[in-house]
């Protein structure tokens, strides 16, 4: 059970949240992108060993959708890479 920092509510138990998956590329414009670009967007889900940006919904709290960076190795919630 992780402890997740909601931007509005601060640290809360994972049980209050719904996982929204890792953040992939932005949605391409479906009226002009190629099939491959569209399928990459749909299917290529980031799955690194280490920090990954992922979405969480504070479903039982304030309702905010936000992202955190979490290490897939240690569960540690870390700063966005590059931020100091």
């Amino acid at each position, binding site marked *: 059970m992780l402890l997740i920092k909601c*931007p*509005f*509510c601060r640290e*809360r*138990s994972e*049980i*209050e949240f719904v996982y929204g998956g890792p953040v992939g590329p932005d949605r391409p414009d479906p009226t002009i992108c190629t099939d491959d670009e569209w399928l990459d967007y749909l299917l290529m889900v980031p799955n690194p060993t280490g920090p990954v940006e992922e979405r969480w919904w504070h*479903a*039982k*709290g*304030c*309702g*905010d959708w936000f992202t955190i960076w979490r290490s897939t190795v240690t569960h540690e919630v870390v700063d966005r890479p590059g931020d100091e």
Partner: protein
Amino acid sequence: MAYNAKISRVGAMTLFDLKGKQTALAGWAGEALPPFPNTPNTSASKDEMELLFIGPDHWLLHAPLGREAELETVLTPTEAPPEISIVRISDTQTFFSITGPDAEQIISIASPLDAHLSVFPENGATFTEAFGLKALILRKRDGFSLSVEQSFGDMVEDYLERAMS
């Protein structure tokens, strides 16, 4: 020792859901409302009404059920400008009052929220989880108010009775 707490089912309260920018809401209905609380998950009160800051650009107006018609007239949800949303949701939640010296222990059975006074202040008000459900918890003078989606009211009453048994 069995728990020294008293639990009662209050039922519905007046609730209006307010969304939009604070300035826009204040502009539309500011005089009718308590002051806007500054800190997330706290409330401010006026004339038996409380304004709860429960999400980004999101407040709840909470008052005794008897105030509903009067507040509806003042807030006029259907006339509100497009940039704010005011929706009467009094019937969506059912309230329980949990009071007494062991009230915080009952909350800890229900919810993972840290309801310690050093964390959840005198005017604390937040949505969290209780008995597996989305729940609104408010600190009250002698304990807490806990409310859940109205249709789960019987189940939560069942749970609270089990907690006190």
